């Protein structure tokens, strides 16, 4: 078995036990990564229920494909890739990718308007409120680190569409951040 050469020994053991169908090991793997993966899923979906559906389907896929993991990267990164793809499949299934919204003209905010620290749950909510297309491209580009060519291939859109969706997403997020700051200041 060519797996897990570079993994820490605890993960190596865990993967091997999961491959043997050990349910306790599967639970341990789930406990180790489900929190972070739920957060990933929440960024791509609009509700917690949808996110949990993606999470469960993603883990089912992870357990069924664990024998394909060759240990060529971190286990967490491999799990995250599967989860992101599962989220994209979910969005496609819902057929609500790239539902354009009428965009209001927004004034550009300067970079100085962005504070250093915000509450993560608030930021998550801001992402959730974005139209699906904006949200998906922003997540893939800004947080997962894919480039526009890769995003274009994954979503079957042109690079220019990816760029324009990202730009619109940033604009909307910037507006939401300003509103958030204003509310915080008044309180």
């Amino acid at each position, binding site marked *: 078995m060519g797996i897990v050469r570079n993994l820490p020994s605890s993960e190596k053991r865990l993967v091997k036990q999961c*491959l*043997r*169908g050990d*349910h306790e090991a*599967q*639970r341990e793997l*789930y406990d180790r990564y*489900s*929190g*972070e993966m*739920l*957060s990933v899923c*929440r*960024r791509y979906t609009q509700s917690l229920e949808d*996110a*949990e559906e993606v*999470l*469960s389907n993603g*883990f*089912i896929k992870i*357990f*069924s494909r664990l*024998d394909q993991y060759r240990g060529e990267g971190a286990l967490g990164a491999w799990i995250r890739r599967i989860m992101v793809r599962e989220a994209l499949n979910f969005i496609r299934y819902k057929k609500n990718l790239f539902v354009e919204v009428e965009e209001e003209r927004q004034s550009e905010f300067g*970079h100085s308007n*962005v*504070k250093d*620290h*915000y509450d*993560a749950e608030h*930021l*998550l909510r801001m*992402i959730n409120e974005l139209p699906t297309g904006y949200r998906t491209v*922003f997540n893939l*580009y*800004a*947080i997962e680190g894919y480039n526009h060519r890769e995003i274009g291939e994954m979503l079957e859109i042109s690079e220019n569409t990816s760029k324009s969706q990202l730009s619109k997403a*940033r604009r909307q*997020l*910037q507006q939401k*951040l300003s509103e958030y700051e204003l509310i915080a200041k008044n309180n």
Partner: protein
Amino acid sequence: MSSKHPIDALFEKELKEHQSSPNEAVWEKIAANQQGTKPKREGIFFLRAASVLLLVGLSSFWYLNRHSGDIGIQPSNAQQEFVAGPDDKPENNTDEPENTQTKEPKNAKAKASKTEPKQKVKKANSKKGTARVIPILQQKISDPVLALNDLNSIDLEENLEGVETIDDPDVLKIRVNLSDIKGDYQTNPKAKKDLRQRMWAYASSQYERVKAGEGLELPNTDDAKIEIPLPDFINRRFSK
């Protein structure tokens, strides 16, 4: 590398490692799904075990035949015993003349011709005129397969007693002499180990064939050697 857009940087910093607690129902759904799936490696184990069980059956058959004389089942004057597979008809066995060179199917000849007669037959303690016949594995493929004991290299030219076709032209019955194989075989640990390794390799190769959707094949007999494990070896392996 260009600096990251501040909006991107902010969201990445706060959300990339962010964690949420999933509802327990999520795990219950996953666990319920996992209950219905068999671990792949466990499946491999069972297929291997199935292959080995096949070998156990074959080897038991061979073992009992080999020892039947030793424990007095075989009459002392019964120098030959004809053994064939389940398709064998009794009337085909009873009146086999001893040492008769029956007509050999051409593919049997072809197979036999592959074996060089250079192999020496160990006939330690063998009694003159005593002929033992080991069970014949039968197969429905074009080339007949001889199943001979590894530790007694068999010269086909000398020991092949008879090959004949029965009802099914692809099923052959082959008789061979088998010299006394007591001695080394029972006591030499190295020989036992070699046999064990090769038998395990054989079982593995059969597993690969089954996995690929092919049928089981009998041991390769290009060198006229049998590769069948003894039951006690199998027992040891599985009792670990």
